[in-house]
């Protein structure tokens, strides 16, 4: 090994000497020409050479943990099934003894669970293999499987006049699979909003409601909305698409039996307002959307308090009588208890304007929030026993399920699934990533803007450069290892700088995250691989993608004209990261860091301020005079081919 390194070094020295001999400034000229930078202060050989993704943190093996995802309870209330997506397992536990009885392998990252009315079949969404698996609850063996949309995360079972149905939220293909149970087949796949993430059925089984995590793609200065999609599970047709104004990150949805309400936890976001402060929910706050099932009207109610916040609301469940709702706060480590009778009484008294303004009143929640149940780290999914007497809380980053007496709100105990993984810096880092206690009044966590390390699809206005037009697109953290510098202006040389004092000053408005936790945090971020993309299973490209690849790496236009080096796609977006990690002016009003393109298909909107809603728009709307690579020679088909190739990265 040493010998090889020595020979390599010798060869390099020889090359360098010869080059210097041939031309004194050869290397400098080379670096200037290839990097396109006038100043070489931030340029090194490693911007283009010796870059390998194989050595990056996200490409290395990592420990797996017993993090509970979705849960389902048998109709008799005796057993609870828990999806352990990081383990590729489903666990069965006794609800009384709180002991795990069995664990069974289910390939493809099992995430969402539902059980049929008889308790015979357990339905499991497999997030990484785009399928729904059916398990026999007696044997816990897989008895069936069906392909659904991309990255299914939630499933609900319902009985309709036409037979039993399953409604599946496909988070990456932005659609909903509606399946008949017998035979197991897909009846339809209507479109949802962006990143459908939770499903609930009305008590009569006639409607399914799907909550979407990301906002719809709209112009960057337009008020963003996410969607609650209402479908008819019998016919698999869309009935209504309700907009939740300035709301997103909905990861749960639940029907209220005694009222015609559908409850959706949400993050109320204020991304268009300059972030001059974070107090009083200036950046975001937590809320609960009440959708009137009959009329489709939506009212948003706050869940935070004036000086204390309960970040990242996720799972929601309502007791069978419809009197109380429980909402998990993944960042605040509590389950909020909402008295729905009090909430209804407040709504009855309020005039329409007051109702619409309710979400902005940060001191309103004591009128209906009656308790906050403390949990261990990162509570997410919730479920109630059929009799409503026991609440189960998936403590995702503690590898446990908290069992609570739902009547007196006292802790009964825990179902222990794993050891919490505290010896693993990646797991510790994820606990930091999801913890709101580091921010002023616990207002938000890293995850609030980067769900699962990804993006929320919004642009924010930080006030570091003064109040003005400073909207900047939120960038995904998936696959960022090795792509430093960070920030759109490329000023942060490392994640430690990006997430340390800078984050504390600009966003958290507290002291920086302590050094040890910061290192865990950056280890976690670096361990996050790029998001999965659509690609042939064998890794080959379709003809269109092949043509797009040729365009991406082209050095000449179709008519043989040489494309200047600095105008070629691969010059700035050089493999394997598809970024040389330098800043360029692509005609968008400044010089900006070159983002990597791994998983770029799912990171819309694009460009530094999110002005391009699709990859196509980068060139069709915002690349005047070939300012963003020479693309004007392409026809529509060629541009489509290029985009198809980009979607495979």
């Amino acid at each position, binding site marked *: 090994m040493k010998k090889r390194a020595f020979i390599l070094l010798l060869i390099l020295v020889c090359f360098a000497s010869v080059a210097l001999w041939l031309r004194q400034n050869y290397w400098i000229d080379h670096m200037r020409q290839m990097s396109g930078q006038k100043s070489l202060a931030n340029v090194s050989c490693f911007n283009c050479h010796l870059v390998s993704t194989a050595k990056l943190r996200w490409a290395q093996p990592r420990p797996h943990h017993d993090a509970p995802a979705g849960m389902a309870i048998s109709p008799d209330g005796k057993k609870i099934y828990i999806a352990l997506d990081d383990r590729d397992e489903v666990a069965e536990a006794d609800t009384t003894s709180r002991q795990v009885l069995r664990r069974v392998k289910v390939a493809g990252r099992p995430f969402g669970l539902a059980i049929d009315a008889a308790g015979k079949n357990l339905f499991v969404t497999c997030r990484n293999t785009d399928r729904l698996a059916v398990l026999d609850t007696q044997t816990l063996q897989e008895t069936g499987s069906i392909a659904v949309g991309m990255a299914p995360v939630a499933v609900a079972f319902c009985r309709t006049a036409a037979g039993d149905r399953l409604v599946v939220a496909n988070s990456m293909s932005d659609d909903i699979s509606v399946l008949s149970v017998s035979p197991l087949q897909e009846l339809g796949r209507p479109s949802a909003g962006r990143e459908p993430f939770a499903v609930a059925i009305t008590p009569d089984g006639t409607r399914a409601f799907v909550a979407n995590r990301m906002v719809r793609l709209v112009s960057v200065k337009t008020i963003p909305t996410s969607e609650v999609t209402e479908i008819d599970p019998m016919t698999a047709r869309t009935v209504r698409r309700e907009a939740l104004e300035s709301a997103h990150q909905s990861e749960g949805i639940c029907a209220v039996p005694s009222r015609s309400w559908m409850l959706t936890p949400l993050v109320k976001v204020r991304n268009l307002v300059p972030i001059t402060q974070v107090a009083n929910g200036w950046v975001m706050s937590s809320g609960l959307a009440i959708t009137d099932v009959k009329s489709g009207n939506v009212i948003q109610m706050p869940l935070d308090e004036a000086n204390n916040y309960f970040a990242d609301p996720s799972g929601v469940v309502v007791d069978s009588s419809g009197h109380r709702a429980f909402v998990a706060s993944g960042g605040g480590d509590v389950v909020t208890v909402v008295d729905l009778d009090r909430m209804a009484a407040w709504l009855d008294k309020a005039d329409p304007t007051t109702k619409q303004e309710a979400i902005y009143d940060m*001191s309103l929640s004591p009128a209906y929030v009656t308790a906050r149940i403390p949990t261990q780290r990162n509570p997410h999914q919730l479920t109630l026993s059929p009799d409503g007497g026991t609440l189960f809380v998936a403590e995702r980053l503690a590898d446990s399920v908290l069992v609570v007496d739902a009547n007196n709100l006292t802790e009964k105990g825990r179902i222990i699934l794993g050891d919490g993984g505290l010896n693993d810096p990646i797991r510790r880092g994820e606990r930091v990533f999801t913890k709101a206690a580091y921010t002023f009044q616990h207002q938000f966590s890293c995850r609030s803007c980067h769900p699962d390390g990804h993006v929320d699809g919004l642009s924010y206005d930080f006030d570091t450069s003064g109040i003005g037009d400073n909207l900047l697109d939120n960038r995904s953290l998936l696959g960022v290892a090795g792509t430093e510098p960070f920030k759109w202006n490329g000023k942060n040389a490392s994640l430690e700088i990006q997430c340390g004092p800078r984050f504390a000053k600009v966003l958290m408005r507290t002291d920086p995250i302590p050094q040890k936790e910061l290192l865990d945090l950056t280890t976690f971020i670096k361990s996050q691989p790029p998001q999965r993309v659509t690609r042939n299973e064998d890794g080959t490209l379709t003809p269109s993608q092949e043509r797009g690849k040729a365009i991406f790496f082209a050095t000449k236009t179709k008519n043989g004209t040489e494309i200047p080096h600095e105008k070629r796609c691969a010059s700035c977006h050089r493999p394997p990261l598809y970024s040389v990690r330098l800043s360029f002016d692509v005609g968008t009003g400044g010089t900006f860091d070159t983002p990597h393109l791994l998983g770029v298909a799912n990171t819309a909107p694009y460009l530094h301020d999110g002005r391009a809603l699709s990859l196509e728009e980068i060139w069709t709307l915002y690349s005047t005079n070939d300012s963003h690579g020479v693309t004007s020679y392409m026809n529509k088909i060629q541009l489509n081919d290029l985009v198809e190739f980009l979607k495979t990265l």
Partner: protein
Amino acid sequence: MKSASHFQIFFLVASLTLLAGAGCHKPVPRGSLILAQSPVNAAANSASDVLDLKYPPGSRVVLMETPFDPNRVRVLSESLASAGEPIVSYDGQRIFFAGKTSAASEWQIYQEDLTDARLTKLTSVPGGAMNPALLPDGSLVFASPVPKLGGTNFNQSQPALYVQSPGGQPRQLTFSSRSITDPTMLSDGRILFVSTSPSNSNSGPALFTINNDGTEVTAFAKPEDANSSIQQPRLLADDRVVFLVSKSGANTAEVVCLARPFQSRAPLFPGVTAQIGSVQPAGDGDLLVCAGNTAGNKPSQALFRVSSNTTNLGTPLLVDPAWNISEAVEVAPHLQPMGRLSTMDVTKTTGKILCLDANFSSDRTSGTMPPASRVRVLVETSPGKVHALGEVPVQADGSFLAEVPADVPLGFESLDESGHVLHQEAPMLWLRPAENRSCIGCHEPRNRAPHNHRPLAVSEPVIQLTLKEAGSASRKSN
């Protein structure tokens, strides 16, 4: 070997003697108390300021270890003529209090380290210092000057808050013509304080917050009584803030909840009629209450320890016939508030203020007033002297953006097309250097989050208003 043993014994004895001579004390038992005591028969005739009145000559700060015995105290303010207002550091090792060396001298802040009994004078500010509080980094916050007796008015310098890092010089945190006193820390790292208007003003006292660098001055809660005074706010373990209210000779304790501070004001002890002198949080969620004790021959101020949900003070924990106990704090480590990185830039002399909608107000009947077309920014250059700094246009959505001088009290008047004043905000707000500040509107409802929309003003050149050219405005490109 034998000689070595003798040497070791000699060394040990010598060390112990030296340590004893240096005033080294054994660790203070957990649960011990720091008391501010005043002689029962002390006369406050010679009082010249508000602290003289509260802590007459002979007042002292003492340590009383468990088990409590009034005759067994350690006087921490031994060398001082008067002392009071004790607080305990977050590690429970140091005591800070206000004291003066003689009747004629000024009140300053002192620190006593409980482990070595060393008394250190921390401040030497003209006009005196009072109301010590501690930032999580160990910096001292205090109010200065100590108000003279005879009422507050515009001719008298009003107390403001200062911060002083260990070994550093005091730096002013607040910039207002109102009296700003009684700082205390909230767990989120903000400084909570009492702001009192000058005596010829109609507005009553209120609780405000600032960050540890004086930025983001914000109303926290406003008791409704204009003719009362409030003092000594303290955060309790159950997320309530207690404060003392003096009105018509009666001293009571009231609370507001952090969850809704503007709508939750209530008496702390609804059934208690005794004069309350002090309420401090203690361990296990208890409260240490100094209140008038009518039992016995002579009324005096006694100490009670009660749970936070009590309605009755019960039996005193401590009564001393010779001393009134005016304050008591527990010697114990307690939760350190969050810190905060400052966003200030001391090289700058201005800050920017963005109002999202000058037409939005909680005290306005919708639709009865014309929309504001511009806003006049006022500055109070000296107490009572307010003049216009300039005017800025209001955009169609009601927003405006201005760059204004830092560290001066600012007020605002919204004007209609013909220049009539629609709304007034008296000079209360200030911006620190390079601070970017926003508000939702004029007299905006408290604890309210903004709507998510892009204010038009941020796309326009910022209007720069300067003190030198008061009354004029210039445009500056963003």
